């Protein structure tokens, strides 16, 4: 591995770990809020227990999410000082505001956990709303930096100097809304399907008709509805994101689709891998004309192929696989949740067959894989740039060239954290069963929430 690859691998490993916890950290508060609202609607105490158990889970997950986020925030300046010099001058606002968003989240989380039994239901919902809002705002703001990297705005380079700085123009760069929207919607989708996976697994492990079974079925139903809504919205937003790529980063779209020749009536190929020798996607399934239509809403749309860009501007060609994995998993999630909803609502079945439950168990990890693929696609598809057509990755990296030792050290830490977070969750929930929590919730004066922060 050369120096640049090492630095990218090092930062990439951090992000790969961090985004799992960050994404669920955005998705779960939305589910908690939904459960609290369901309680207000149905007065069924099980929804309060649900919110409580998800809060506890969130608290444990934050134990990895916050430290890895701290590493990400500091490592940006350590590994990519050239990049952060530009960001500091032009795009500091999202980072600044993100800190406040996080503080808002932490503050209201503490209020929600410490004072849950002492405050009125509406105050509980308000504090939970701010928890969800703070988490979402953090995600939106950080994605905005990513949006800026793809569609920079608010400054110019003149003889190597940064001039004409307009921080708010940089903040509201052209792809801010679609990119941030994509992060937010996929985080909610992932939150719903991760909950669905756990609920479905528990339904398989418990007998039909028991309290535990009914509890998990309620959680599953809630996550199916929300999962369907958000995965469908993600698809609409994904379409808009693709059209943005077509206009603003055409070589990224060409690499994603493995398109070499510029043409109209371009076809969309799924599966397969991009072969640079044959200049085509091998072993894929082609849908004629579809790419042109998706890019510009008309079959006549001319899509620029990779050959019209200098070769040193080409992103790595494996991004086709990542892009495919993301889109296919996303479509699968829509289909699965739609089918389950129809099964339950229109066919009026009392419960779900086992094979659907197993599919939901798989859907959780797959939604996380989809997030990872989408993120790697977004960042490697932008190579060789950190800031598109402005700053190369090679110019951003640190000059300290002894990263191997530090990299090893960080990998060890991530392994320790990931193993112990799983252990912690299993240990805790084995000793605090649903029946305990339901019993506690039914007693008026027992504290349901314990210390969580």
């Amino acid at each position, binding site marked *: 591995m050369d120096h640049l690859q090492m630095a990218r691998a090092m930062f990439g490993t951090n992000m790969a770990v961090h985004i799992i916890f960050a994404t669920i950290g955005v998705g779960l508060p939305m589910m908690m809020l939904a459960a609290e609202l369901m309680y207000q609607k149905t007065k069924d105490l099980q929804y309060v227990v649900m919110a409580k158990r998800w809060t*506890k889970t969130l608290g*444990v997950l934050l*134990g*990895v999410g*916050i*430290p*890895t*986020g*701290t*590493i990400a*925030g*500091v*490592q940006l*300046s*350590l*590994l990519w*000082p050239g990049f*952060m*010099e*530009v*960001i*500091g*001058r*032009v795009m*500091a*606002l999202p*980072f*600044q*505001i993100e*800190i*406040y968003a*996080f*503080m*808002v989240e*932490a*503050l209201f989380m*503490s*209020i929600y956990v*410490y*004072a849950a039994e002492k405050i009125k239901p509406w105050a509980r919902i308000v504090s939970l709303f701010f928890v969800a809002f703070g988490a979402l705002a953090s995600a939106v703001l950080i994605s905005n930096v990513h949006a800026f990297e793809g569609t920079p705005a608010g400054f110019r380079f003149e003889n190597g100097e940064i001039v004409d*700085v307009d*921080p*708010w123009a940089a903040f509201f760069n052209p792809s801010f809304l679609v990119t941030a929207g994509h992060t937010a919607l996929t985080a909610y989708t992932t939150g719903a399907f991760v909950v669905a996976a756990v609920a479905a697994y528990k339904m398989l492990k418990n007998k039909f008709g028991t309290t535990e079974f009914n509890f998990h079925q309620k959680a599953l139903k809630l996550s199916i509805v929300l999962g369907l809504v958000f995965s469908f919205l993600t698809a609409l937003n994904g379409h808009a994101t693709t059209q943005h790529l077509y206009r603003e980063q055409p070589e990224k779209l060409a690499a994603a689709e493995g398109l070499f020749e510029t043409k109209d009536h371009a076809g969309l190929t799924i599966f397969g891998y991009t072969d640079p020798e044959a200049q085509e996607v091998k072993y894929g399934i082609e849908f004629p004309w579809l790419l042109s239509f998706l890019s510009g809403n008309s079959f006549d749309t001319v899509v620029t192929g990779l050959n019209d860009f200098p070769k040193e501007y080409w992103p790595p060609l494996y991004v086709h696989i990542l892009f495919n994995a993301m889109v296919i998993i996303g479509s699968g999630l829509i289909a699965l949740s739609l089918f389950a909803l129809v099964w339950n609502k229109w066919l009026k079945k009392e419960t779900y067959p086992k094979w659907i439950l197993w599919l939901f168990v798989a859907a959780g990890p797959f939604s996380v894989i989809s997030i990872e693929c989408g993120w790697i696609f977004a960042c490697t598809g932008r190579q060789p740039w950190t800031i598109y057509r402005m700053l190369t990755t090679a110019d951003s990296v*640190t*000059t*300290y060239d002894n990263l191997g030792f*530090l990299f090893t*050290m*960080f990998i060890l*830490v991530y392994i*320790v*954290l990931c193993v*112990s*977070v799983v252990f*912690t969750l299993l*240990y*805790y929930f084995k000793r605090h069963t649903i029946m305990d929590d339901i019993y506690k919730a039914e007693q008026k004066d027992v504290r349901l929430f314990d*210390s*969580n*922060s």
Partner: protein
Amino acid sequence: MSDALLAITLVWGFIFLYAIMASMDFGAGFWAMTYIKKEETNATKIANSYLSPTWEVTNTFVVGLVIAIYSLFPGAVFPIGVALIVPASLILVLLCIRSAFLVFSHSVDKYEKVLTYISGITGLIIPGLLISVLPITHLGFVEGVKGNEELNLTKLFTSPNEYAFLLFGIFSTLFLSSLLLSDYSKQADEMKAYKIYRRDAMITGPLMLVMALLVMFTLRNEANWIYVEMMKKSSLLLISLIFFVIAGVALYLPYFSKREVKGMPRLAVIAIIVQYLIGSYVYGIAHLPYIIYPNVTILSGFTDPTSFRAVFATYIVGFAILVPGFYYFWSIFMKDQRRKFKRRQMTN
């Protein structure tokens, strides 16, 4: 005041706040480990209960500090990033493990012991690493031309000034935290723990002062430029010393009085914070205009004026919202903790 001066004052303020918060946090971890065998005194319990609610804020503060530096002084990012990559990575790794186990130990009782050792050991190492940043900025060991800077680690680790700072950082951590914990345990009516922590403060305080003098002495040899500037403010240094004496009197009082006097830890805490405030002001003002001597000054590193105004505005808005919020939460939390202790005492 020029914009750059305003910006560096803001950064200094953040560093000061973080230093105080982090010293108390890290020191509390160390004391919890030290007294783990002396269960009857409750010293470990007190330290741990102080530890838990502060970690999220202190952790975020690290990121906030880093963001403040690169958004206000982006021109300094490259040399700082290269110079600090090794110490900062070590800090991150230790901080990460520490915070994670702090969270996990709430859910897994088995982890409580593991946590106490992790937070105890890292509680000494992290402050030592953190304070090493200061000698790196003033000793002039960041070598090479712009865009190709490198920290000379050999020079750093053979410098007496680095070790003086290291010890000063560690003893400051122990002193500040024992002082705060003595106040905290007095508030909670835990007289056994109070006596232990007051004793610790009475020992570590003078040691800290010796290290501070050692810092000055080694500065004179190794970074004379900053020593000369600091001595121009010698009257302020004297005032800070007076505050140290005030704190000493507030702590030692029971030994000189015949009547049953408990000492005034709260007064000592305030006096010591004032002492550090003055001391770090003198160091900071002498450090100007350099961020990293002699490569980067506050003017060469300063951000674009339009960006500065936008960032400054977000600080004002952000703090206006958050400070009252945190004050409110902190007061709820402290009341809650005190009630818990009272309840525990009643059941014992």
